[in-house]
């Protein structure tokens, strides 16, 4: 028996040895076949340009109700009444985009792909500024690279300094030669470096202009940036959508057509363009939104009031497939020549009023051309006294009003609205306003629930009425 035991022990011991040797190979199968460890630069470029467009839409879908382009067909809808909503999805997509840009910039830097690095920096500036403009202080310096589990919140003003650094560095990187040019993986410009540089300058102008209420405001610097910015609508930064993936505003219109209601136009926008508020009918209205097919008129919904007893279909103006902003393959506008012209008008207003006035008119023209308005209609509109009031009667209000029309559905409109303290003509608080706002307009988005639960210790204590640094 003892011998048998011994033999067994020996056999097992040998078995264990043999096993240990073969085991390692047998178990070495944990390399992920589904996800690669490295991402190609062009793959990151595809995703970041696309997601930047998507983020513009995501923020726009919220802010468009705040600036009353759109209104909910349902009464007291949270989106209209400026409720205390948690925008987890928008937040996480903004950070996803910045994370991918972070990786793209680092990888491009390592491999000497300076154009990718530069474009990445410009896109980073864009996404970071969108985030700050919506949320104020946000994590960044300790973020993106997994340095800590709970990144601290950086001061919003500090972050703007970084936005400008990214833009400057981006422009510098793009201005050099490269061995690894950007190609069709770039949904903005298909690798056209000059256009990227112009975008960098245009964005510089945009973000400098955000500082209008602050002591930092420098119209000269803005105008200098504009000189190197867009030269025509051809330069616009935009993503044209795909057969595989429709423009998200088109999707809203399609869904609405199928009674998943959305994309209803605010009465504010209708009245501003149909002649009610300003006494001039804006031809753009027919290129942007639908008429109700019952009475053949443009009818809007009062924000917060809902559609009342109106039918859910063909009773109010909505986004519709076929229009400039909401067709399947429409471009999603990120930064336009028209917007730049209005920035120029605003910056030049105090310095060089005639430059300002001309830029204002050019801005209107650029936008009208962009969305396909007939030349004759453009001239009719421009020549109307309400539009061409002459340099003497020309005020900052005219710039804000026309810029508001030209930024249709764009989140920049909410930045303007806050800088302008929502003082557009005839612009009222929504009905059934969130009572916490004490009859004031919303000034920021609240931090999303995900941050509340995962990064609570760092979370700044703010309300919807606390302002972003440039709004104070």
């Amino acid at each position: 028996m003892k011998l048998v035991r011994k033999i067994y022990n020996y056999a097992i011991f040998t078995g264990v040895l043999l096993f240990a040797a073969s085991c390692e190979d047998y178990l070495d199968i944990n390399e992920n076949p589904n996800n690669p460890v490295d991402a190609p630069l062009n793959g990151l470029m595809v995703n970041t340009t696309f997601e930047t467009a998507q983020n513009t839409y995501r923020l726009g879908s919220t802010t468009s109700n705040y600036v009353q382009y759109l209104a909910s067909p349902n009464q007291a809808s949270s989106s209209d009444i400026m409720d205390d909503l948690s925008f987890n999805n928008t937040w996480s997509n903004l950070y996803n985009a910045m994370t991918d840009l972070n990786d793209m910039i680092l990888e491009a830097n390592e491999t000497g792909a300076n154009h990718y690095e530069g474009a990445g920096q410009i896109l980073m500036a864009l996404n970071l500024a969108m985030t700050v403009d919506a949320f104020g202080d946000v994590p960044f310096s300790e973020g993106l690279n997994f340095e800590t589990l709970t990144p601290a919140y950086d001061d919003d003003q500090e972050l703007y300094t970084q936005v400008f650094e990214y833009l400057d560095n981006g422009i510098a990187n793009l201005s050099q030669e490269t061995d690894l040019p950007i190609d069709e993986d770039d949904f903005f410009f298909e690798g056209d470096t000059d256009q990227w540089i112009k975008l960098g300058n245009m964005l510089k102008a945009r973000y400098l202009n955000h500082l209008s209420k602050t002591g930092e405001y420098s119209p000269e610097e803005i105008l200098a940036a504009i000189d190197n910015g867009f030269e025509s609508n051809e330069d616009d930064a935009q993503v044209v959508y795909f057969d595989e993936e429709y423009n998200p505003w088109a999707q809203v219109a399609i869904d609405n057509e199928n009674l998943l209601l959305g994309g209803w136009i605010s009465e504010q926008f209708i009245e501003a363009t149909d002649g009610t508020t300003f006494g001039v009918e804006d031809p753009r209205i027919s290129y942007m939104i639908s008429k109700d097919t019952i009475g053949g008129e443009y009818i809007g919904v009062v924000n917060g009031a809902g559609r009342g007893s109106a039918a859910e279909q063909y009773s109010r103006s909505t986004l519709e497939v076929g229009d400039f902003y909401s067709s399947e393959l429409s471009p999603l506008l990120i930064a336009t020549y028209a917007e730049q012209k209005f920035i120029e008008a605003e910056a030049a207003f105090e310095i060089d009023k005639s430059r300002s006035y001309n830029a204002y008119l050019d801005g209107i023209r650029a936008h009208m051309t962009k969305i396909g308005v007939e030349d004759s209609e453009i001239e009719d509109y421009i020549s109307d006294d309400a539009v061409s009031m002459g340099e003497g009667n020309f005020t900052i209000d005219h710039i804000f009003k026309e810029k508001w029309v030209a930024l249709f559905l764009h989140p920049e409109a909410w930045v303007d609205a806050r800088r302008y303290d929502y003082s557009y003509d005839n612009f009222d608080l929504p009905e059934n306003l969130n009572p916490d706002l004490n009859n004031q307009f919303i000034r920021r988005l609240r931090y999303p629930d995900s941050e509340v639960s995962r990064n609570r210790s760092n979370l700044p204590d703010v309300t919807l009425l606390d302002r972003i640094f440039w709004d104070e």
Partner: protein
Amino acid sequence: MKNKISLIAFLAIFQITTLFAQERTITGQVTIESDGMPLPGVNIVVKGTNQGAVTDMDGNYSIEASDGDVLVFSSIGFETREIEVSGDSEINITLTEDLEGLDEVVVTSFGIEREKKALGYAVQEIQGEDITQTKQPNIVNALQGQTAGVQITNSGGAPGQSARIIIRGVNSLDPGADNQPLFVIDGVPIDNSTTESGSGNTPRGLSNRAADINPNDIASMNVLKGAAATALYGVRAANGAVIITTKKGKAGDVQINLSSSIGFEEVNQYPKIQDTYGQGFGGEYDPNSFWPNWGPSIDEIREIDPDAEINNIWKDAMRTGVQFDNSFNISGGNEKANFYASVSNLDQEGIIPFSEWGRTSARLNGELIFSDQFKVAGNMNYAISGGNRVPHDRFMERLVYNTPMQDINDYINEDGTMKSIGTNTNPIYDARFSTFEDEVNRITGNLKFTYSPFEWMDVNYLIGTDYYTDSRTEITPGPLGIEGEVPLDSQGFITETRISSRDINSNLFVTLNKSWTDKLNTTLRIGNDIFERDYERVDATGTEFVIPQFYDLSYTSQLSNSQDKRKRRLVGLYGDLLVDYDSMLFLNITARNDWTSTLPIGNNSFFYPSVNLGWVFTEAVEVPDFLSYGKLRGSYAEVGKDTDPYKIGQTYTAPSVYPLGGQVGFTRFEEYGDLGLRPERTTSIEFGTDLRFFENRLGVDFTWYKSNSKDQIIPVPISETTGFSEFITNAGEIENSGVEFIITGTPIHTEDFRWDVTLNAAYNQNEVVSIREGIEQIEVGSQFGYVGSTVTQQLIEGEAYGNIFGSSYERFGADENSLHLNEDLPQVIGENGFPVRNGDQLILGNSTPKWIGGLKNDFSYKGFDLSFLIDFRTGVEQYNQYDMFFSAFGIAEYTLDRNDTKVFEGVLEDGSPNTQQVWLGQGEGPDGRDYGAGFYRNSHRTVSENFVHDASFVKLRNVSLGYNFQDGILDAIPFESARISVAANNIILYTPWDGFDPESFSAGAGGNATGFSGLGYPGVQSFFFTLNLGL
């Protein structure tokens, strides 16, 4: 018992005894004490010799023995007696039935049978008839209320819908962890995963894979609870194991059994709803309004529209479910071979229209005994299961939006388009056309070779496979192309999902038995265990059908697809030593080392031991007569745990939107896996006692346990600003401790009548001991509520698993540091006269029951038998999402006070009592004040506290009455046996919960967010009629 006999036989054969005394012949008769019937087949041995005899058919025996010898009488199912020979030549004795009887042998790891009394840990075995009696098509449900410390929860009442099984609490901080035990059939583990319809898709109530098993094939199920019981299955059984033994043929005549049953089911509880107020808003009637119930009362509506009526669309939309279950089996064999073969079919239609599920299975079990040394057994099962899974969540939600002033069943126009009121999708139309069909084809099988070259040695090799494909087709039609239609989807889509999963288990073990003395025996088992799972899933989605109603991927305008491949391997070496001293003291030591493919090499080998001790003290010390058997037991065990494949490091992924314009985009994957990931470790200790009184008429089994799982591998949810949203790392510890009682009794036992009672109850206490520095909480899940009434389930250090967080009413004098809502404090009433809402997330309840248990009663009288099973849970709260919708939409019965004026009870900021009168209605109140959307929409629906309710229940889970035809009738019909029975499930539900059966929850069996009752498939009650025939 069996082992004891063989031990005696062993002694009888090998022990050499010298005999000096004068031998003579002793004769006598052995009878059964309770009824005096003669007992054949009793073994009689002269103690300490190899001399033996067996009683004949009349219980008579004859044996050679001398004065002073001790005769040992033993028989399976009876207590062993010893009688000393003292001059008499005739010894007649009676034997007492042993209530533990045949179930004393239980099946443990790898299908090894062990004497229950030899075990140092708690086990509880359920017999096949107790499973089929419940009429549950899903074997997991069949365990409901029957085993102590085992919590079974139906995720809903859909046909084939998954049921969740948790043993002794949740052991993982990972919200995505499957905390369910390993399922083992005939020694080989099988897959019991639940693959839900996927995130972003509406819930469909899919099946857990154990539902593929035909309950009629089961001989017994045994739940191994502690880590001690499962040390030999390794990592995969870290949450316990359910050991299933299927039926096998017996030597003798061929037996044929037929069973046929029909069942009907209905919703067992509806929420209380109001039927006074109709469509409109602000008390104004509008037949096109989005609002189904904020209009005026039906009396006022009838002044405008005399034909108007308010229907109970909830009841109208449901139907009576029907199920048919037919099964057939044949078995038989001889000394050399035996077999069991079965075929069964189950078809079930659920209470929500168009929900259905079915299962067809065929099994063949066989065993060939070539010689004393070599035998082979094989089991094979083929099953097809699946059905149409309706979008129940959407169905229930849409009932909220649909006006009750319509006939909800009038949902389709003649041209096939949907009839809808307002903008609403009719839920029945959706259930009919938004189909989700699954079909699982599954083969499970194993072969077991046993070679016994020597008396003291067995070599076993078990190899088994579990292979299935799960084909799923989800179709949502687009527009049919008919003018004016309201389509279900603007484009329509088809998703084809193909899952294939293959498990292979190989297990080689050698068993060595040795008797050191006649009192000391040892069994040593050493073995090697290899597991591999190869899994692949492919999804293809086509959007926008080119030809309406022609549903094929090839004819869609946009295609997208995805693929997921996974492979996992585990290798284990184990040893198991059992020491048995005098059938009184049992010591069991196990040790195991596992190597896994899923952890970083270097960290992927882990060792864990266990030890347990059982002491049958009634064999050792004098005890009072009323105590017939007593055992103390204790165990200590560790078990390691690995993780899923591919969790380590940082990767990139291509989002499903690509390719776009021929380009594929990449994004950083949201998870980051710790490069130094180590195995988790669970340590558990357990003490218990098993006592039998009054000749085994009363039994008490008590267990205390505590288990700690440390170094958990969890995806810690981290701020997305870090660049990841989850960090997979070793963090945290969770502790479960509790007690379990099992009380069994036979209060009455006469010749014709017998009453057996089993009561089990278990208390579990859970604590999240730690998480990780810097991480305050882990979200297990969240469920939507309007305007800040969304609730979450969070894990927080020092608190229990299952806490539900949400908004509440502000309390006067509340402790600002307390996470718990103190409901006893007065509510703070604001300047506007309404209660002040507190948006801080406080703990409003906990969804893990404190106590669970069941009471089973079996009565038999001649041919009749009656049994009923009651089960209960207490100390449990859930979020009632329906109630939130019912408040927001004025459906709940309590919203009948919508036009009342009241003074809210509570205090003002300064502590003085509130006296302000307010109106609850919408618009301008009687006091001229504008109340906007009214109390329910402005306030009530926004406070989670209003919807977190006590979800305790007591259920009459099953009652069944059967009659076995007796000889007189059987003689007249061509059957050996015949039985008819009626059964009812869940016919009594006693619960404080207002709503559908609180047992349904949203997450499905694989999910851990059990606090959200959501818009689940309503629970049901059912009635069955069954006929069994034997040939």
